[in-house]
């Protein structure tokens, strides 16, 4: 090889290497989005439409029965909050018995047996917000578990291993959303797991099925054709406590700044 050929080949080689692989491949941005982070095919996400929720509490009733949470114990995997904001700027929020029996009176439960009635004409805005475990991408409850009893399954759902839990309660303290509690019978940490036994069989969660108004929906955010994914990607949705960096996977339509 003479000097001329060597320089020619070098230039060709460098030019060839500098073409990124992306330039010769057709890439679907949706597929790219789905492949981002990891190769998992399923990532369960939840969508709540607060405009549709009427506060009937049928979701809470179904959840408690489906997941064997003692019906009269004042704990629940999911609950519905009522927010009433008055014209003089006061914010009232309640969820009596986790809204298991719905909201049947305009009286706000202030706790300790006190109730406050708010006149219709004083209401500036009022609405219901269903809450459940956010199945965070970065779950703080999992980080703090000292024994590996709570963990994130490959499809993103955070589960509790009842045989492994020692009942220290760190996860209950660690959750910024307050979704965890001790199961009154098993005495281990308990939380919503998107009805794992149902979604893994292709069924909807008990709360999604029980909701007559379609306020709750569940879908696979890794599937670009999933109707829920389409809504989350294209519409204006909010998440709770974004500033904590937990990356919650429960999305809300019509989230108000008053919702905590």
């Amino acid at each position: 090889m003479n000097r001329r050929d060597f320089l020619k080949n070098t230039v060709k080689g460098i030019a060839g290497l500098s073409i990124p692989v992306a330039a010769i491949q057709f890439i679907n941005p949706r597929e790219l989005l789905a492949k981002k982070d990891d190769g998992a095919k399923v990532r369960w996400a939840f969508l709540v439409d607060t405009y549709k929720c009427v506060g009937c509490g049928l979701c809470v009733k179904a959840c408690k029965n489906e997941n064997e949470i003692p019906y009269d114990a004042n704990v629940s995997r999911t609950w519905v909050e009522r927010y009433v904001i008055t014209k003089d700027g006061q914010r009232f929020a309640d969820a009596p018995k986790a809204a298991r029996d719905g909201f049947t009176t305009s009286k706000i439960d202030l706790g300790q047996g006190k109730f406050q009635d708010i006149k219709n004409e004083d209401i500036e805005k009022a609405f219901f917000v269903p809450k459940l475990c956010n199945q965070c991408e970065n779950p703080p409850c999992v980080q703090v578990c000292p024994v590996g009893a709570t963990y994130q399954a490959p499809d993103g759902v955070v589960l509790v291993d009842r045989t492994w839990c020692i009942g220290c309660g760190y996860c209950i303290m660690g959750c910024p959303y307050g979704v965890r509690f001790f199961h009154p019978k098993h005495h281990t940490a308990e939380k919503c797991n998107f009805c794992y036994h149902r979604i893994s069989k292709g069924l909807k969660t008990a709360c999604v099925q029980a909701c007559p108004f379609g306020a709750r929906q569940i879908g696979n955010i890794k599937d670009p054709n999933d109707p829920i994914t389409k809504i989350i990607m294209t519409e204006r949705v909010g998440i709770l406590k974004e500033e904590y960096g937990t990356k919650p996977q429960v999305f809300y339509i019509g989230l108000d700044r008053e919702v905590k």
Partner: protein
Amino acid sequence: MKNHVFRPLLVVIGLIAIVLIFRIFYVPKSFGVHERGYMYGWYREANIDDWKKVTVKYQGKEYCSGCHSDKVEMIDKTPHAIIQCENCHGPAIEHPSNPPKLDKDRSREQCLRCHAKLPYPSSGRAKIRGIDPDKHNAGIECVMCHNPHKPGLEGMK
């Protein structure tokens, strides 16, 4: 090396060995670090299958219509078509074998979940026809006059 140093050292090494051997038998095989690393993925993998084995209790309207198609067809013509049968009739589980009879919720409270009037604009509640529970025949079960499968006024008993 002197004996009084060597002996306790052997005891300590022995204890560590016992703990490690005990661990081999006690910790399940599937326990360990999985996909998401030590921070989020340190768990017993067999537990995922434990959760999948939980019994499904709410079977859905399709399941009910397998036998009670007449009732489902009737309610499907009304605004109550959006309500799952099991919301009032209780979870089917493996009905009719288990349980043979479902525990029906015919209470006034069940109806009031939606039909107690609450003037909350920007929530769906304001759009539902409702009553004031204190004024509208207080204390009487709604099903005495209204038929939940035919909720319109023409379905009144």
